C-alpha cells in the first residue's frame, strides 16, 4: 500500500489560533477583515440568512449533530414573545477543548457569528453561557463585548442598522448538566439546572422564560459567520454531503502530538489522525481503544471490524483506522462523533480503571432529577470503584450492563442516557477484562438477600 501524504488541515475557524502575531483584541480582528460579514448580513433579509444556513447543511457542533438551519426553522416566530439566542459555551464533555480555543483566542469571531445569528432569528437579547471553570474565558469575552459595543458592533442600533441585540456573558457554577440546553436555560433563569421534559418544553417554542429560544454551540455560531461569508452553497462544498464544513477534533490520550486539529469533515480517517497527524502512539505501545466523540460516546476496540451499509447504500467494512472522521463515520461504527473529543487509549490502559474514571464523572455530574440516571450512575460508579479496589465479582460485568440498560431510553434528557453508553460499550467490548478482575481478586462480597 502506498503511504498517502499527511492530510492537510483546513483551518477556517481556528485560522488564526496559533498565529503568534494574532491577538484576541478587536483591532487585530478588524485588521483581518473582522465584522465585514456582519455588515453584509445587515444588507440581507433575516430569513435569507436562515436560508443560507439551511443550505449550508451545517450540523450542530455541540454533540448531537442536529442541522442548525433546521433548528432555526422550528423557532416559533408567531408567538409575539421575545426571541432569545443563547450560545452554549458550557464545554464540559471530557475530552473536548475546542470551544475554549475559539473563545480564548478569537472571541470576536464568536461575537460576530452571534450577532449575525441574532439578526437572522430577530433576537434582541443574547447570552453566552460559559462554564464556570473558564474564568479567563469569561473575562476575555466580557472585554471583547465591551470593545464591540464601543465600536457599535453589538448592543443598540448595530452599525446603524436599527437592529439592537444585547449580549451578556453568564457564568455557570460548575455543572456538566448545564450543557444540556434545557438545563442551561433553567440555570440561566436562576434555577437549579434540571433539564425540562420534552414535550412540551422544546426551546424553539418554550425556551428561556417560556419564550422561543435558540441554543447553539460556540463552534456552530462561528460557522454561521463563515457560511454567510462564503455563501451556503459554497460552504456545503466543504466536507461531504450531510457532513458539511470543517470540524475541530480534540485529540487526547496516548499519542505523541495530542491537540486540536481542524479538518474538512471526512477529509481523513481515524487512522490518519492517529498515526499521521498526531504522530502515532508512544514508542513501544499499541492501540487498544478509541473513544471518538467525548466520554459519552461508545468506545471502539482497536481490533474490531465495522461492517454495514451507509445511508447512501454503499457497504463498508472498516477497521478502526478506516473510520472517516465526520458525523456519519463514527455513527456508522456504532458510536458517535459527539463533541469531537477523540480519546486514544493504548495497551497500558486498564479498561476497568478507565470505566471507573468515566463512571465517577457521570455519578458526580448527574443532576439528580430523574430516577434512572440519578441512582444508576452512582450505582455504576460504586461497582467499578469496588472492582478497582480488589473486590470484583464474576457477576459484576452483567450487573453493570443491566444497570446501564435500565438507564438507557428512560431519562428526561440525553445526558442521562449518555451516562449509560460508556458502560454498555465497555462491557460489550472488554468484558474479558471485567471478568478477569474477578478471577484475580480475593475477598468478594456475597449477594445480599433481603
Amino acid at each position, binding site marked *: 500500500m502506498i503511504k498517502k501524504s499527511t492530510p492537510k488541515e483546513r483551518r477556517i475557524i481556528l485560522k488564526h489560533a496559533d498565529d503568534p502575531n494574532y491577538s484576541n483584541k478587536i483591532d487585530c480582528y478588524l485588521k483581518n477583515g473582522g465584522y465585514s460579514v456582519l455588515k453584509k448580513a445587515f444588507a440581507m433579509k433575516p430569513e435569507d440568512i436562515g436560508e443560507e444556513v439551511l443550505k449550508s447543511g451545517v450540523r450542530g457542533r455541540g454533540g448531537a449533530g442536529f442541522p442548525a438551519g433546521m433548528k432555526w426553522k422550528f423557532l416559533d416566530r408567531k408567538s409575539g414573545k421575545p426571541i432569545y439566542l443563547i450560545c452554549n459555551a458550557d464545554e464540559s464533555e471530557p475530552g473536548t477543548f475546542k470551544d475554549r480555543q475559539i473563545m480564548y483566542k478569537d472571541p470576536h469571531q464568536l461575537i460576530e457569528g452571534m450577532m449575525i445569528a441574532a439578526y437572522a432569528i430577530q433576537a434582541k437579547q443574547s447570552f453566552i453561557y460559559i462554564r464556570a471553570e473558564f474564568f479567563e474565558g469569561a473575562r476575555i469575552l466580557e472585554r471583547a463585548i465591551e470593545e464591540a459595543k464601543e465600536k457599535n458592533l453589538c448592543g443598540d442600533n448595530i452599525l446603524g442598522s436599527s437592529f439592537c441585540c444585547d449580549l451578556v456573558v453568564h457564568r455557570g457554577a460548575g*455543572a456538566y448538566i448545564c450543557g444540556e440546553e434545557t438545563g442551561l436555560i433553567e440555570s440561566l433563569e436562576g434555577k*437549579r439546572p*434540571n433539564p425540562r*421534559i420534552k*414535550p*412540551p418544553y422544546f426551546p424553539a*417554542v418554550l425556551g428561556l422564560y417560556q419564550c422561543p429560544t435558540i441554543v447553539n454551540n460556540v463552534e456552530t455560531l462561528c460557522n454561521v459567520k463563515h457560511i454567510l461569508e462564503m455563501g451556503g452553497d459554497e460552504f456545503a462544498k466543504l466536507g461531504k454531503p450531510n457532513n458539511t464544513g470543517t470540524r475541530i477534533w480534540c485529540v487526547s490520550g496516548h499519542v505523541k502530538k495530542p491537540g486540536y486539529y481542524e479538518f474538512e469533515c471526512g477529509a481523513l480517517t481515524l487512522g490518519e489522525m492517529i498515526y499521521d497527524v498526531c504522530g502515532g502512539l508512544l514508542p513501544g505501545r499499541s492501540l487498544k481503544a478509541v473513544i471518538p466523540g467525548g466520554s459519552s460516546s461508545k468506545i471502539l476496540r482497536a481490533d474490531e471490524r465495522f461492517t454495514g451499509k451507509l445511508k447512501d447504500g454503499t457497504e463498508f467494512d472498516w477497521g478502526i483506522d478506516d473510520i472517516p472522521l465526520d458525523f456519519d463515520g463514527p455513527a456508522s461504527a456504532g458510536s458517535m462523533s459527539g463533541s469531537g473529543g477523540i480519546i486514544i487509549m493504548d495497551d497500558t490502559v486498564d479498561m476497568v480503571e478507565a470505566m471507573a474514571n468515566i463512571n465517577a464523572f457521570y*455519578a*458526580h*455530574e*448527574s*443532576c*439528580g*432529577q*430523574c*430516577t*434512572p440516571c*440519578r*441512582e*444508576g*450512575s*452512582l*450505582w455504576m460508579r*460504586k*461497582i467499578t470503584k*469496588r472492582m478497582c479496589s480488589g473486590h470484583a*465479582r464474576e457477576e459484576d460485568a452483567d*450487573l453493570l450492563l*443491566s444497570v446501564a*440498560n*435500565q*438507564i438507557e*431510553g*428512560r*431519562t*428526561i434528557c440525553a445526558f442521562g442516557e449518555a451516562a449509560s453508553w460508556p458502560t454498555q460499550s465497555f462491557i460489550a467490548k472488554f468484558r474479558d477484562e471485567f471478568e478477569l478482575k474477578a478471577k484475580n481478586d480475593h475477598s468478594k*462480597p*456475597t*449477594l*445480599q*438477600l*433481603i
Partner: protein
Amino acid sequence: MGSNGNTSSITINLNGNDVDVPAGINLVEAAAIHGTEVPHYCYHPQLSVAGNCRMCLVEMGNPMRDRGTGEPILDENGVQKIGWIPKPVIGCGTNVTPGMHIKTESSMVTDSREGIMEFLLVNHPLDCPICDQAGECRLQEFATDYGRGYSRYVERKNVKPKRTRLGPRVTLDDERCILCSRCIRFCQEVVDDDVLGFVDRGSFSTLTCFPGKELSNNYSLNTVDLCPVGALTSTDFRFKMRVWFLKESPGICTESSAGSNILVSSREGVIHRITPRRNDSVNDSWMADSGRELYKSVTNEKRLLTSSVESQKCDLSSAINSAVTFLQDKKLGIVGSCHSSLEEQYLLTKLAKTTKAKKFLRGHFGDDDGILVSADRTPNLRGTLVTGFSTKYPTDDLTEISEAIDKKSISTLLVVGEDLFNSGLTPDQLKGVSIIYIGTHENATSSRANVVLPSLTSFEKSGSFINRSFRLQKFKQAVPGPAGLLPDLHIIASFLNALDQEKEQTSDIVSIWKQLSKSSTNPLHKIKYTDIPQDGIQLDSTRWSDLDFVEKKAMHFSPRKLNKVTQN
C-alpha cells in the same frame, strides 16, 4: 381536574381496545378512567407535571402518515399502521391525541417499571417496620408489583439526615425521600410559599428548607399526605399508630365555611389523625393544618360529660324534663348555632315555631387566608338560611338579646353551643334570665346555665353541612360519643315530643330529611339524605344572592391557577 366545560371526547387505543376518553387529558388519567392503573410517584393531578420519577413510562404510538402527502400509511389489510416510538414515554407528561395507541402492560413497560423500582430502592433504607408510611406507601405497593424480591445492590447505601425538622409540624427523613418534588411544587403552586428545595446533586440530592425559612405555613401537613413515601412525616402522628389499624370515616372540616372534605382516622373509638379527602369542587386534595387539630377537642378536659340542673349533676332524662319546664316560658328565646348540623338547625327551627320563641344567631368571623380557611369560621351558616332558622345575615355578637331583655320580652334562653358572655352580653343583664345550655364544652354560659345538656361533637354524630358555595355535604359519625351522651337531635326531639304530644318527632336523620325536603320552595326539595353523594350536591342559592356574605369573592372554590403542562 379543571374541565373547561369542554367535554369533547376522543378515541384512543388502550392495550388493544378502542376506548373513549376526554380530549386533552394525560395518559395516566386516560388509563385510570378505564380501570388501568399506571403506577406513578411524582405525578399528582392537582400539581404541575414534573416527570422525574419515570415510573409512569408507557409504550406509545401514533397512526402513521406519509410525511410528504399526509396520507395515512396502510398495512396489507388496509389498516393504518402505527408508528410505535422505540422508547417508552412518560404517561403524566403525554396527552392523548386521536388514534393514539398506548400499551401499559407490554414487556417494554414492565421492564421499565422494574428498572425504576430497583433504582428507587437501592438507596432507600427499607425501614418499613419502623416507618409511619408503611401500609399506605406507594413504594411498598409498587415494590410488590414490580420489585425483585431480593437486592442486587451490595454497595453501601447513601447516608442522609434522618430527622430534619422542616417546621413545627413536619419532620423529614431524607433517606426515604425519592426526590419526586411533590412537596416543593405544592408549596410553590398551592400555598405560594416557596420554602422547600433540593440541595446537592445526583443521588446525594437532599430535600431541605431554604436558608432562614421553615415549613410553617398553615398547609404544611399536606406535604405529608402528598409524600408518596415515608420521608415527610407529621410530627404529631409520627410513631404513634400503624395506619392499618385505623378506621377511616368521611367527614367535613368544621373550621370554616370552606367545608374541606376530610377523613377521620380512628382506632377503637379514639381519633388519631385527620387527613383531607379529595373533592375537586371543594378542596382539591388539601386542608389546613389548623383543621387537623380539631379532633383534639373530643378529649379536651373542658368537655361536658354529665348533665346538670342548677349545678347539681343528674341523669339526662331528668335534665331534659326540667328543661322542658323552662321551655314553656312564654318569653323564650332560642340561640341557634352555625356549628350545628342542618338537621339540628331544622329541629331547632321547629322548636322555635312550637314554642313561639324568638330566634337569635351569632356568626363567627375571621380573616380569609385565600385558600381553605374562609372568613366565616363556622361550617354551616348557610344551613340556618336554608332551614329558615334565620332570614338575615348574622353579626359577630348577640347584642340583639340584650335589647330583648331590656324590653322584658325574654326571660328564658335556650342556648346551643354559643357563649353569651363573649357575645356582648354581661352577667348583670342575664341576672333574671333562665338559661338552658346544650353544648359539648364548658364555657361561661354553661357555668351559669340552669340546665346543662351535654351533647356530641361532629366526630361523634352524622349529619350535613352547607358550605360557602352552598354545597350540601354530609359527614359520618367516626367514633362513639362518651357514655350516656345523646346527640343534639335526640335532645331537641325530646323537647318537641314533650311540648307537642300529638305529633311525634323522630330523631332519625333519614326521617327528618323527609320533612326537610317536602317544601317545594326550599332548595332541598326532593333530596333524599341517603342519595347525597360523597362529594356533595350544589344547591341553588339565588334566593340569598343579595345577602352580604363575609367570604365575598372567595365564596366559590377556585383552584389555584397552575402552570400545567399544556401541549399545543
